[in-house]
């Protein structure tokens, strides 16, 4: 208690110092006076009494110091004193202070904001207990050349076999994410749901908020139970605690709600924030899933928890053993397929694709911060040079170098802490607005925010920045030569050349990193431009798209489905303003990566070529016309291409060129599956343009189109008993008016046919394209804005150096002019010193650009990281800006009146 009280008092007294000091002086004064009185009484002379009193009291200053040490924390006290001194100094130069703080605020704020993304996505452990033991198990299909192999997947028989036969996992289960029609509570709507084995819940190990999770047993029993996400529970059930036991309808089948998961539970950890699972249902694999085509559909994934002591490698070889057994049991029609089991840590699987982007952003923002630091150090150095005389006098009067060092550091600390505080506020604001605009390719977006680790990072960054920026001027101050400086007197010769050199180095470094960032931004902009030039293969204007999925409960027969589709197409076609209408199973620009293997008649693949994969679209009516896909050869499908007639297909140009190079593809034959798969031949009747199924910068796939009515027939042995086709599809409409205006009409048309059927993701094609371009746009905008900031800052830096050196050498210039130097010569002289700095910086910057090229390569599209045009343009721009920055001080110097300057001496 007494110590606590004392602690606070000692702290407080640091701030009440002057008052206490005065009181102490009074007290000591009295003490001495009383002692003196005593000695006077004893008969001493005044002078003797004074002396005796002093002797009896001891050293007054020592007593005061003892008192100070006792009453307050002295180390702190000195820093406090320095801080006060700094505040006084800064108040005297508000321009410098504002510029420095603003720069720091931007630098630290931007870095903190980006770091919070790094932390949320890459560094924070996954939100499950002991996340390091969670792994993804999947197959890599030999020869599939799949672009999405970062996400290995499994088939239904795989799930059964791995779960049954592996020994390395304490829990292991399969899952797949699907769109579901939800009804029974309010408007029918589309929800994202995950079907998964009961074991998945056990592996993740997160307890439910309400109720319970389903078990593996319930999964195998095909129980119709559902676990809700927190968001779903809040939005659809208003957080009602009595939700347990209530019924919801998914595709019009009843499910019982048995639990609610906590707010921060998220699984699968998908990129973006619109694809998150809102419901979890038992996987409940049906017998059909193990036969025919379904058995060769890699449409699910598996997650598991490693047993204690088992490594990822051990688990992988265990799984590989099971994979070999699985392959031995493959039916004849898939006998040549080869798979490899792959075990990846869940963390790696989640962040692998986001890592390059996040790393590059962090790299870019660090570059900006470095430039800020260099600029600030430069500004502080200028102040140190300006105060050279003051510092010399203080050194002459006995100030210790340590004190000067401390003051310099304190000054830059005060600046950086103020800047850091403002920067943190800026980062908080930026995150509030920015997180919702992050590209959908980033996972775990909801976890991004200013939490404690980020705060600590910002604090550390602030202190480090302050310390580093303070070092240069601090050493400059302590290295001031007292003698030289005082001798120089007020004359501003070309002195302090050592400091000037340090500043020049700083500025050259700034220009170098700024140029590195500028070239990066230039390359990204060029890539963006190139991407915009890529032909989509379809006309996105005036096109509307919407997805429907027919629930099996009501559309259980092929005739019911066909009836619906026919009515839909007729009704839509009769709408005023509709030019063409069609249905396709895959929407261009929608990010499809679903492809299947084909066998091509007469095509002998080169050795090691792997499988002939192509993206398959099932179409109905005329989506080619509706989407504006150009027909290059042959014909489109007609009414007469139906289940009973000859099987037909349309291929894209890429497919035709790969398998029938230099030939007319019309009349050629291909079939689904591998050579050993028994499927009927389809005849090519048309060739169309290449269509971008994903984003423009993605590779174009070979594509095959088929009438949906013929799909079951063409599957041959792959078709399962009672398989239906056409139960889902994208409606595409080409309209004469703005497509947005048609949305409600289309909805009403569908509702007239089936009042309960919702339409999903109704959107214009232009919107779909802009969505697919969003990630690249995001990278480009962010990196470019960092580059602009970097360039501006470094131009400011070069201006500062030149302007200051010109100001210092005013008299020198005046003398030169008085001696007959031409004004133009003077301008040239100053410009060349700026150009020299810029040239050195640009040289280093180009080296930096080469060094950064491997980091950047994955973000570029059809642009080499050494694109000479971009590199040259950026370098020239940087040089010109640097020259412009030195031109201003040069003009000012040349317009000084030599007489005035000389008289000023």
């Amino acid at each position, binding site marked *: 208690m007494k110590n606590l009280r004392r602690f606070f008092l000692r702290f407080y007294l640091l701030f009440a110092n002057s008052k206490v000091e005065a009181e102490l002086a009074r*007290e000591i004064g*009295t003490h001495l006076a009383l002692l003196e009185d005593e000695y006077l009484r004893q008969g001493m002379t005044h002078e003797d009494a004074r002396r005796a009193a002093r*002797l009896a009291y*001891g050293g007054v200053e020592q*007593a005061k110091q*003892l008192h100070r040490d006792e009453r307050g924390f002295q180390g702190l006290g000195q820093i406090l004193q320095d801080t006060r001194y700094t505040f006084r100094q800064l108040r005297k130069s508000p321009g410098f202070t504002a510029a420095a703080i603003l720069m720091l605020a931007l630098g630290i704020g931007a870095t903190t904001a980006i770091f919070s993304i790094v932390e949320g996505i890459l560094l924070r452990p996954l939100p499950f207990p002991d996340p390091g033991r969670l792994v993804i198990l999947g197959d890599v299909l030999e020869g599939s050349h799949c672009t999405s192999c970062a996400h290995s997947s499994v088939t239904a028989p795989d799930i059964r076999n791995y779960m049954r036969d592996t020994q390395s996992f304490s829990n292991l289960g399969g899952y797949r994410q699907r769109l579901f029609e939800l009804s029974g509570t309010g408007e029918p709507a589309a929800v994202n749901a995950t079907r998964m084995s009961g074991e998945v819940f056990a592996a993740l190990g997160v307890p439910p908020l309400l109720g319970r999770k389903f078990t593996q047993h319930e999964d195998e029993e095909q129980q119709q139970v559902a676990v809700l996400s927190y968001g779903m529970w809040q939005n659809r059930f208003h957080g009602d605690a009595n939700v347990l036991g209530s019924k919801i309808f998914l595709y019009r089948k009843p499910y019982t709600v048995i639990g609610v998961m906590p707010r921060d539970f998220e699984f699968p950890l998908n990129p973006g924030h619109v694809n998150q699972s809102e419901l979890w249902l038992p996987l409940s694999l049906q017998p059909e899933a193990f036969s025919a085509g379904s058995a060769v559909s890699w449409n699910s994934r598996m997650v598991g928890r490693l047993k204690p002591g088992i490594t990822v490698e051990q688990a992988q070889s265990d799984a590989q053993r099971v994979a070999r057994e699985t392959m031995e049991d493959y039916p004849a029609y898939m006998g040549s397929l080869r798979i490899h089991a792959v075990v990846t840590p869940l963390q790696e699987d989640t962040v692998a694709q986001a890592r390059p982007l996040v790393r590059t952003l962090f790299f870019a923002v660090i570059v900006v911060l470095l430039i800020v630091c260099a600029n600030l150090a430069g500004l502080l150095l200028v102040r140190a040079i300006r105060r050279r005389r003051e510092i010399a006098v203080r050194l002459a009067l006995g100030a210790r170098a340590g004190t000067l060092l401390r003051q310099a550091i304190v000054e830059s600390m005060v600046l950086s802490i103020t800047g850091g505080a403002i920067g943190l506020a800026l980062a908080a604001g930026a995150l509030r607005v920015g997180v919702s605009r992050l590209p959908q390719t980033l996972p775990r977006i909801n976890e991004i925010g200013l939490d404690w680790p980020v705060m600590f990072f910002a604090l550390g960054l602030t202190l480090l920045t302050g310390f580093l920026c303070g070092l240069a001027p601090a050493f400059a101050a302590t290295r001031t030569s007292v003698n030289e400086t005082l001798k120089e007197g007020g004359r501003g010769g070309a002195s302090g050349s050592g400091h000037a050199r340090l500043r020049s180095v700083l500025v050259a470094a700034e220009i170098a990193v700024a140029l590195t960032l500028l070239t990066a931004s230039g390359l990204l902009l060029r890539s963006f431009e190139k991407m915009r030039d890529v032909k989509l293969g379809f006309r996105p204007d005036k096109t509307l798209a919407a997805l429907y999925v027919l629930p099996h409960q009501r559309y259980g027969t092929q005739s019911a489905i066909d009836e619906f589709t026919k009515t839909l197409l007729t009704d839509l076609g009769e709408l005023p303003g509709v030019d063409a209408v069609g249905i396709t199973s895959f929407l261009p620009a929608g990010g499809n990566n679903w492809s299947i293997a084909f066998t091509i008649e007469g095509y002998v693949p080169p050795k090691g070529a792997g499988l002939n994969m192509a993206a398959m679209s099932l179409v109905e009516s005329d989506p080619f016309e509706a989407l504006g896909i150009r027909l290059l050869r042959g014909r489109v499908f007609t009414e007469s291409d139906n289940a009973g007639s000859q099987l037909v297909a349309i291929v894209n140009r890429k497919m035709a060129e790969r398998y029938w190079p230099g030939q007319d593809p019309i009349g050629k034959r291909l079939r689904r599956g591998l050579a050993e798969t028994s499927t009927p031949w389809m005849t090519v009747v048309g060739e169309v343009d290449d269509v971008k199924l994903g984003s423009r910068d993605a590779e174009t796939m070979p594509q095959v189109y088929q009438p949906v009515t013929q799909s079951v027939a063409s599957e041959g042995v792959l078709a399962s008993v009672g398989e239906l086709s056409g139960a889902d599809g994208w409606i595409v409409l080409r309209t004469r008016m703005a497509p947005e205006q048609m949305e409600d009409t289309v909805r009403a048309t569908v509702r007239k046919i089936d009042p309960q059927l919702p339409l999903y993701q109704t959107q214009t094609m232009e919107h779909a394209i802009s969505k697919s371009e969003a990630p690249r746009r995001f990278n480009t905008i962010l990196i470019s804005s960092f580059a602009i900031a970097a360039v501006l800052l470094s131009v400011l830096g070069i201006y500062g150096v030149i302007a200051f050196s010109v100001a210092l050498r005013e008299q020198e210039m005046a003398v030169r002019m008085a001696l007959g130097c031409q004004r133009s010569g003077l301008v040239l002289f100053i410009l060349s010193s700026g150009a020299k700095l810029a040239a050195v910086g640009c040289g280093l910057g180009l080296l930096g650009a080469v060094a950064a090229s491997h980091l950047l390569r994955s973000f570029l599209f059809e642009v080499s990281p050494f694109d000479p045009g971009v590199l040259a343009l950026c370098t020239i721009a940087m040089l010109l800006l640097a020259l412009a920055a030195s031109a201003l001080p040069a003009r000012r110097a040349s317009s000084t009146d030599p007489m005035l300057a000389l008289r000023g001496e």
Partner: protein
Amino acid sequence: MRETTWMSNKEKESIQLLQGTLDLIVLRTLATMGPQHAYQIATRLEQISDRLLNLNQGTLYPALVRLEQYGWIKGTWGRTESNREAKYYAITKAGQKALGEETQAWRRMSALVERLLLEES
């Protein structure tokens, strides 16, 4: 100049003040004599120690500020008989209590040391 009291001297009998004892002496002085200013306390100390303490009067100040921060004594400005302003220190309730405890502790300690010394001799 006659030989004075608090001057540091090199007499053999001079003793060093034990850690913490100055606090006790100051508290005790204030408890028995009422509010005192620094000079009075110093004079008192000199009297009772029979000039054996090797101490400057200024040494008293840190002890005073420490005790004040503990809340054991409280200083107020007043006037001396000779009409000089001086800071008078008075013992507080907490100080009284602390004095009691410290005295007990001191007694136990000195008794212990005494016993030890007796055994040794």
